């Protein structure tokens, strides 16, 4: 007998046997995750195509229109006000989305790829390789990353590429350690032993048996890092390096606008909100994806939001 959702007294309709629910459907059931997905999708679209729409609006200055507050009367580009140089904050937000993502995404991807590869390799093989990799991680970690960034960016000019490299190198140890820990634990598991007995080469074992298990954790770390990278880039802008004009990133906007906090809140609050929204969305979506990819946890996504005492039949205690 079958019960489709609001179960009828005697459900008689045969349910479509859906073994694995579709991603869309699971996403749709989690309101927070779907909102996050929408935010990220919009951000990505804006980052990819926004510049085509706004043209040079983000750069167009008008010193006479300096610090105009957000208003409806100034056309689309006046919607969110202007900055001190009279540039449209909206246009700059759009322009900055592309720069911000073009720094954050490659930086995170680089450190994720390099760090995870090294970590899995080190963790799987153990021994000398493991300790060398760990010591390298120690060395990188013990340099205060912000200061290294300051040195390097001042010496080798603060280009976006250098920024990406610095941020990537600084975060490699995080992935390296996480991946190593996972791999070291998995290498003694039965299925890995089995694969080894069959003569599967190490690289294949890592790829086929270890990576899939370690990946969700690594991806979660990566999302948190996404946030870290954006914030570090912003801190660098605060210290005067980081993204260089005429390029603009959200972090740079926040840093530059901070002087005008009392007079023109919109310059700094709006890009700050953009950072917060994007990172929160990324985190929410990562948490969701982590559960959705884990067959043992997937059921959680199907839970309705339980409010205190909403269901009398199950004592709240029964909910872990």
């Amino acid at each position, binding site marked *: 007998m079958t019960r489709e959702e609001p179960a009828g007294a005697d459900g008689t309709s045969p349910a479509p046997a859906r073994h694995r629910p579709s991603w869309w459907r699971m996403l749709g059931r989690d309101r927070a995750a779907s909102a996050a997905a929408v935010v990220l999708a919009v951000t990505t679209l804006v980052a990819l195509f926004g510049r085509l729409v706004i043209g040079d609006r983000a750069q167009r200055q008008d010193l006479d229109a300096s610090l105009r507050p957000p208003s409806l009367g100034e056309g689309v580009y006046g919607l969110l006000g202007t900055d001190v140089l009279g540039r449209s904050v909206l246009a700059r937000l759009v322009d900055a989305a592309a720069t911000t993502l073009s720094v954050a995404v490659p930086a995170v991807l680089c450190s994720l790829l390099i760090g995870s590869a090294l970590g899995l390799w080190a963790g799987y093989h153990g021994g000398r390789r493991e300790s060398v990799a760990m010591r390298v991680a120690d060395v990188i970690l013990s*340099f205060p990353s912000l200061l290294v960034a300051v040195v390097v960016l001042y010496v080798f000019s603060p280009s976006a590429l250098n920024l990406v490299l610095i941020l990537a190198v600084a975060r490699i140890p995080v992935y390296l350690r996480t991946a190593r820990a996972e791999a070291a634990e998995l290498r003694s598991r039965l299925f890995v032993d089995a694969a080894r007995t069959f003569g599967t080469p190490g690289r294949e074992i890592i790829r086929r048996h270890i990576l899939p298990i370690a990946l969700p954790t690594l991806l979660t770390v990566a999302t948190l890092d996404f946030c870290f990278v954006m914030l570090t880039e912003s801190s660098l802008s605060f210290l005067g390096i980081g993204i260089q004009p005429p390029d603009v990133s959200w972090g740079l906007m926040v840093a530059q606008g901070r002087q005008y906090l009392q007079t023109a809140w919109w310059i700094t609050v709006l890009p700050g909100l953009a950072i917060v929204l994007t990172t929160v969305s990324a*985190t*929410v979506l990562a948490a969701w994806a982590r559960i959705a990819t884990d067959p043992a946890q997937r059921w959680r996504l199907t839970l309705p939001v339980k*409010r205190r005492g909403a269901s009398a039949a199950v004592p709240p205690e029964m909910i*872990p």
Partner: protein
Amino acid sequence: MVHFLRKRIISSAVPLFCVVLGVFFLARMTGNPVDLYLPLSATAEQRAEFSAAQGFDLSIPAQLWNYLADAARLDFGTSLRTGQPATEMVLDAFPVTLQLAGVTMLLAITGALLVGSLAAYRPNSLADRFASLLSMTAASIPDFWFAVMGVLVFGVSLGWLPTSGTLGGPEIWVLPIATLLIRPFGVLVQVVRGSMVSALSAPYVKIARSKGATPLRVIFGHALRNAVTPVLTVAGDLTVGLVNGAVIVETIFGWPGIGKLMIDSILQRDFAVLQAAVLLTAVTIFALNILVDVCHALTDPRVRQAVPA
């Protein structure tokens, strides 16, 4: 455990040496500081004289050798900027940052354990969603922005707190610590929540509940110790990351800590101080890593057993 500690300390020596080398070359890459310390109109002879006096005219290997030889005698040179011994300046600044970081991490870990555990107790509940949103937002606010806002709102508009400085009662700590705290707290809440959710769904938690344990006992008596391992690791990394935050916080609030000292020495090309400061920070970070490992061993008997006693 003693053996383990000894092994860890010995294995830290090579990386530390790499750090020393790294910071030496990094500093040298920033160029000769002569321009900064001589008047704009200084003559070529004056420049040469200055360089010679500071040893910058030597080849890089010779400079390195001198530096290492001095460092071996624990002499880290004299600050170009103030003329004081670098060691003295670094040791003056270090406790300030250590206290900031210590108090911050203590609060962050305690707070995150509480909030994260409560959120994890009922996943997807209203409280959980609120805690998650709060922590994620906290983790993504730029610290300098938070600091400046804090000064304006709590310092000036409401007048509750002093704007900045190190002189005064406990209230002087509030804004700097709050600024440093937001990110580690936000991240840790999520880590605690995640690992508590899985700890709470473990069979031993069911068994504990089948023994009639109260929710508090279940969380703090059973699940927490099991959930704490990833938390410790992340907390260690976040503590290391606090050096970055300290740069910002100390710059804004005028705290004479190591972060500000380091950034000033970079901007002033004060190599001796920079090298001493980074070395001390690195030593501290290594010590911290060892401490994290010791905590792992203390909280998890399986790890403890793997470590030869």
